[in-house]
């Protein structure tokens, strides 16, 4: 679960990581109060989860009160569904850095990455100038040690007089990473003020969904999602993605869903939505159908090949879902795995044709969507 900038900065502040004075507002009636707290000029930032806010006009600087109000309304109009804006003091920046912490999957350590090229697209730097990325790994049983932080900061080119506060900042950031079960913590830009102080200019924190039970203070809200269907799916715990094609995919098993997604594209079809109702969700066919139907699709393609996720239970669920929701689009099924004989009977009795071959099912779905499968 990604946190919004205002949430990440609240975490940073509670961990003694310096952040600018700021206030979260919902509309222009709060601007006067906001200015009293953060002063002028100030920065207005839309609280959305996608990157590229600057380019999209979702971060604006304003120098006087009327301008702040104007820009608040401008930013608000550009950020759909998101009620919150951050109004923040403008900091005099001398230099900007990048710093992040993530898991290093090969060794099982934590990877700290930094660059003196802050404030920009770090992926691009990593691709074109990998020598500009400084890395250090941390053993999870020992945690980040002060000498590692110092080494890292010197390698990053931090001035001698700032190594002490930089070390504290990194140790505190590691605490945020570890104590909150973060998959990612990132400060970009990590600003150095003209007075020679570090300030976190932005904050990205992603909390591991699997560990959210240990952090009940964070919960998914509608603002985390682009639309109602994706929100409803997440609340049900059903992996769901939306695209703009014709065929709705309802598959059990993430790997198989991926493979079917490729086959649809390879044979010249297009995917409208991707819903994975395997694992613990295999008895949720009715709910899954409800989600799929909220999207416009031309055909529904159901493909499974599971062991624990039983074919007969999913076939029965599908039949129940059709009875309940009466979808108007045609449905193609290839439901295999444990209990497939019973599944075959259930589908046949209901008038659906049980296919056993995945590629055949994909081709049939494309035909029913009005396309011609590429051979």
């Amino acid at each position, binding site marked *: 679960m990604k946190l919004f900038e205002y949430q990440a900065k609240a975490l940073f502040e509670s961990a003694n990581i310096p952040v600018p004075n700021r206030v979260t507002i919902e509309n222009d009636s709060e601007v006067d109060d906001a200015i009293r707290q953060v002063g002028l000029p100030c920065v207005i930032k839309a609280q959305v989860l996608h990157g590229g806010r600057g380019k999209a006009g979702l971060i604006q600087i304003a120098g006087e009160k009327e301008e702040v109000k104007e820009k608040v309304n401008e930013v608000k109009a550009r950020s759909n569904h998101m009620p919150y804006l951050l109004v923040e003091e403008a900091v005099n920046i001398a230099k900007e850095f990048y710093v992040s912490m993530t898991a290093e999957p*090969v*060794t099982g350590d934590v990877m700290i990455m930094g660059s003196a090229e802050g404030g920009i697209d770090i992926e691009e730097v990593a691709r074109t100038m990998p020598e500009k990325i400084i890395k250090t790994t941390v053993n999870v049983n020992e945690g980040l040690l002060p000498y590692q932080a110092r080494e890292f900061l010197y390698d990053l080119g931090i001035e001698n007089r700032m190594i002490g506060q930089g070390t504290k900042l990194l140790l505190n950031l590691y605490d945020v990473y570890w104590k909150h*079960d973060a998959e990612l913590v990132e400060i970009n830009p990590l600003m150095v003020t003209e007075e020679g102080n570090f300030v976190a200019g932005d904050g990205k924190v992603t909390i591991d969904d699997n560990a959210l039970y240990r952090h009940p203070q964070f919960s998914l809200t509608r603002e985390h999602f682009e639309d109602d269907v994706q929100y409803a799916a997440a609340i049900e715990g059903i992996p769901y993605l939306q695209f703009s094609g014709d065929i709705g995919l309802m598959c059990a098993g993430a790997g198989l869903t*991926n*493979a079917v997604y*490729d086959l649809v594209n390879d044979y010249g079809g297009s995917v409208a939505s991707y819903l994975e109702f395997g694992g613990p969700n295999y008895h949720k066919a009715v709910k899954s159908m409800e989600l799929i139907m909220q999207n416009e699709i031309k055909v529904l393609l159901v493909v*499974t090949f599971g*062991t624990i996720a039983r074919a007969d239970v999913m076939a029965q669920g599908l039949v129940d879902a059709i009875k309940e929701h009466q979808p108007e689009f045609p449905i193609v099924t290839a439901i295999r*795995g444990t209990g497939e004989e019973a599944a075959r009977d259930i589908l046949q009795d209901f008038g659906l044709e049980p296919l056993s071959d*995945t590629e055949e099912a994909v081709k049939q779905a494309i035909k029913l969507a009005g396309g011609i499968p590429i051979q």
Partner: protein
Amino acid sequence: MSIILDEQTRVLVQGITGKEGSFWTKHMMDYGTNVVAGVTPGKEGQMVEGVPVFHTVKRATAKVEVDASLLFVPPKLAKDAVLEALDAGIKTIVVLCDGIPLHDTLQMRNAAKTKGAMVIGGNTSGIISMGKAMMGFFPHWLDRVYKPGKIGIMTRSGSLTNEVTAELVKAGFGASSLIGIGGDSVPLTRFAEVLPLFENDPDTEAVVIIGELGGTMEEEVAEAMENGVLTKPLVSFLGGRTAPKGKKMGHAGAIITAGKGTVEDKISALHGAGAYVAKKPRMVGELLNDIFIKQDI
């Protein structure tokens, strides 16, 4: 011969008295697995399918010799159970559960390295040596899906494995051992770490890897091949070739991030190392046929 597991391997089941634990213990024993003990705190003295249950792993290993442990525990308890098994000296551990917190996984991987143990999972169906033994859940009764043979298989996905093995069987092949390393972003054992075991297994004549977008595990396999770790033919099928960047495609590990993890990169690395790349599940069987015809000549 098989890798990691055969009918001689003495298997402990942690969480044996639970619904899934007892159900799959029976399946495993029916298949030939040598289950020698179970652990469920508070249930010592009970029997499951004739197997004695102990309160703790140490109490079990004090009475019964154990080679490997299989966990049927919820994700919240996985770390504790793995550390308990490692502490009792068990060197092969299979963790099936889906949804283990990432930081717990990092700690488990670290502990396994320190103890020189192989912990496999999470989010996997487990491991099976065809016709001999299994630790996990596999539809072994579907003989159009699972047949003993000479192909070693490593996979990141259970459902896709059934799809691919069915194609493999259709093409006239079977598997020696199949290792599900799971779909997490940090698997406790990586493809490249299993590769040498298949290389050294005389009953494995070729290796199939079933991978997908995300991470760098397939690239590590390519690197290992280039370093001569694997000299047997390798066929790969990778899912998510057409997936868009930045979307988490079902599995936690199946996401393209920071310019890494595209199937395109993986394919080019594998091609470069001399691996065969199947574009569709069906092509895995076709490519194997090509390879073995070539070898006969």
